[in-house]
C-alpha cells in the first residue's frame, strides 16, 4: 500500500520535475553558478524560472504527512496482532518471543526506511534546480531532504507501536499516532527549529553589500530597520518621498533618513547541523517510546 502511495506521489511530481530540470539546464544553471551580482540578464532569467516553478508542487506540503502514514501503515499489523490476541498464538509456537519481536521490528523499521528512502530521493531529485537557487533551509524543503525524513518515520513507527502496546486498540493507536505525530512535527518546525542556534542578524546600509547567500538561507525576518536592527513599520509612511526616482537616489534618500536593511536568518551552512539536531530529537523520542514499549510488553502484557 505504501508502494501505491509513493507511486501516486511520484506520478504527480515526476513530470513537473523533469520539466523543471530541463528548463533549468537550458540556461538557468549557468546563471545559478555565478554570484548574485553577475548581471541583470541573469537576474531576470532566474527570476522567471523561480516564478514559473516555485509553486509547481502544490501537493508538497501535504507530503509532510507521509512519514506519519508510513508509521501507521507499517506498524498496523503488529497492533492488529495485539488487539486480536493472535500474539498469544504467535508467542507460544516454538520461536521465542524475543526472536519474534526482533524480526518483526526489523521488518517494520526496514520497510519504513525503504519507503522513506524512496520518498527522500524523489523529493531531493525534484528539488534539485530549486535547491541550487533557493537553498534547502526553508520549511517544506528542509523536511524532505537530508536525514530528517528517516528520523520522522522512526518516530512515527515508534509512536504507533507504543500506542498499540499500551492500548491494544487499532483505531486509537493509528488515529492517535497520526495526530500526535503531526502535532509534534508542526510544533518543532514552527516553534523550535529557528532557535536551534541563535540566528544571524545583519544590519546594512542601503546600497552597500548585504550578507552573501541570503537566497539560500532560511529567512526569518528581512526588511527595513533602524540602525540597531529593529524593524520599521511601513517605510512608505516614514519616508514617502524616497521610493520614487532612480535606484541610487532611493538608496541615498533612505540613508539620509537612517533607514537600514536588516536580515535575520539561519545560513545555509548550518543545514547539516540543524538536520542533526532535528533528527536527534525525533530519533531520541522514538528510542524512548520503544524502550517504554519493551518494558510494558515484558512486565504488563500477558
Amino acid at each position: 500500500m505504501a508502494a501505491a502511495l509513493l507511486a501516486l506521489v511520484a506520478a504527480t511530481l515526476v513530470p513537473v520535475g523533469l520539466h523543471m530540470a530541463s528548463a533549468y539546464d537550458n540556461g538557468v544553471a549557468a546563471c545559478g553558478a555565478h554570484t548574485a551580482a553577475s548581471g541583470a540578464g541573469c537576474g531576470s532569467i532566474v527570476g522567471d524560472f523561480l516564478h514559473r516553478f516555485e509553486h509547481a508542487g502544490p501537493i508538497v506540503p501535504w507530503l509532510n504527512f507521509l512519514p506519519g502514514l508510513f508509521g501507521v501503515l507499517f506498524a498496523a499489523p503488529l497492533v492488529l496482532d495485539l488487539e486480536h490476541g493472535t500474539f498469544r498464538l504467535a508467542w507460544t509456537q516454538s520461536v521465542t518471543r524475543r526472536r519474534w519481536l526482533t524480526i518483526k521490528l526489523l521488518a517494520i523499521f526496514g520497510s519504513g526506511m525503504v519507503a522513506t528512502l524512496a520518498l527522500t530521493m524523489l523529493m531531493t531529485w525534484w528539488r534539485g534546480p530549486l535547491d541550487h537557487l533557493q537553498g534547502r533551509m526553508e520549511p517544506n524543503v528542509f523536511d524532505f531532504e537530508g536525514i530528517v525524513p528517516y528520523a520522522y518515520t522512526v518516530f512515527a513507527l515508534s509512536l504507533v507501536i507504543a500506542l498499540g502496546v499500551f492500548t491494544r486498540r487499532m483505531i486509537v493507536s493509528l488515529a492517535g499516532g497520526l495526530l500526535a505525530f503531526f502535532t509534534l512535527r508542526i510544533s518543532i518546525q514552527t516553534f523550535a527549529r529557528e532557535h536551534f542556534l541563535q540566528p544571524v542578524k545583519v544590519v546594512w546600509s542601503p546600497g552597500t553589500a548585504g550578507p552573501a547567500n541570503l537566497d539560500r538561507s532560511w529567512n526569518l525576518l528581512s526588511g527595513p530597520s533602524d540602525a540597531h536592527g529593529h524593524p520599521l513599520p511601513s517605510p512608505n509612511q516614514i519616508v514617502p518621498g524616497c521610493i520614487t526616482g532612480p535606484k541610487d537616489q532611493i538608496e541615498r534618500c533612505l540613508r539620509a533618513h537612517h533607514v537600514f536593511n536588516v536580515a535575520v536568518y539561519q545560513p545555509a551552512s548550518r543545514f547539516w547541523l540543524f538536520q542533526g539536531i532535528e533528527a536527534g530529537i525525533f530519533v531520541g523520542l522514538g528510542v524512548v517510546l520503544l524502550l517504554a514499549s519493551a518494558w510494558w510488553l515484558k512486565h504488563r502484557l500477558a
Partner: protein
Amino acid sequence: MSLPALEASSLGKRYQSLWALRECSLSVPEGSVTALVGPNGAGKTTLLHLAVGLSDPSEGTVRVFGDSPREDPARVLPRVGFVAQDHPLYRGFRLEELLKLGAALNPRWDDELARGRLERLGLPLGRKAGALSGGQQAQVALTLALAKRPALLLLDEPVASLDPLARREFLQSLMEAVAEGGLTVVLSSHILADLERVCDHLVILSHSKVQLSGPIDEIMAGHRLLTGVRSEPGAIARMQSVVHESHTERQTTLLVRANGHVYDTRWQVDEVSLEEIVLAYLAQGPPLEEALVAS
C-alpha cells in the same frame, strides 16, 4: 520418579495491587489429564499464562518439565502446546497457510497429523479461518497445538463458547489424541460436567488460590456426605474437616474430608459426586489459609 509436567511453587502474580494468583502450589504428573476448575476471575488464565511464559511471576516459581518458561523459552516452548481463551487464529489466513505458519515456527511439526485431523473434521484447507464457526475454529486451534507434538498441552477454557454438540466433539477429539500416548493435558473450565468424563486429576482454583488438587479417584474416596438430624452450629464446629454444611428445617448435610474418621452413628454416611465436591469447595467464601492437598 519422572519430573512433573507442570509444577508451581508458591506461585503468585500481581497486577498493580490486585493479586490474580497467590500462593499457588501444585504438581501435575506426567501423563495425566488435569481439570483446572474455578469460577471466572479465579486465576485459571493467569496460571496457564504463567505456565507457558506469556507473563512472568510476581513471586514463586513455575516449572515445565523442570525448566522455567520465562528464562528458558527455547527449551520449553517446543514442548508445550497452548490454546488461549477464544482460540485466537489469524482470521485472514487460509487453513493451508496456518499449517505453513506452524511448520515454519515449530521444529517438530507433524504436517501429516495436522492435515489428517483437518480432513477427518471435514475442514477444507482453502477456507479462511475467519469464515469458520466457533467450534471449527476451536478444532483448528487444537490441531495447530497438537501438530507441534507437544509433551504438555494447555487449554484455556477451550469449550466455553461452543454449543453442546461441538463441545462433545472437541473433547472426544482431545481424548483420541491423549489415547495415542505421550501427552499430558491441563484444561481449564468453569463447566465441570464436561471434564468429569475426560479428566483424571483435578485442581480447584478459587479466589486466586488453590483450594484442592489431586487425583480424582482419591478425592472422591476422601470425601463423604454426612446427613443427619439438624445440629447445632457449635456441635459441627467441633467436628473436623467440614468442607461445607447446609441446613434445612429438620436436616443437616455436611461434606467432610474423611481420612478414615469414624463418625457418630447418628450420621448417615454416603459417597459424594465430584460435582458436589467441587461446588462445596467453590462455595467456601474467603480463601483457606493453607492449600489442601489430597495427595
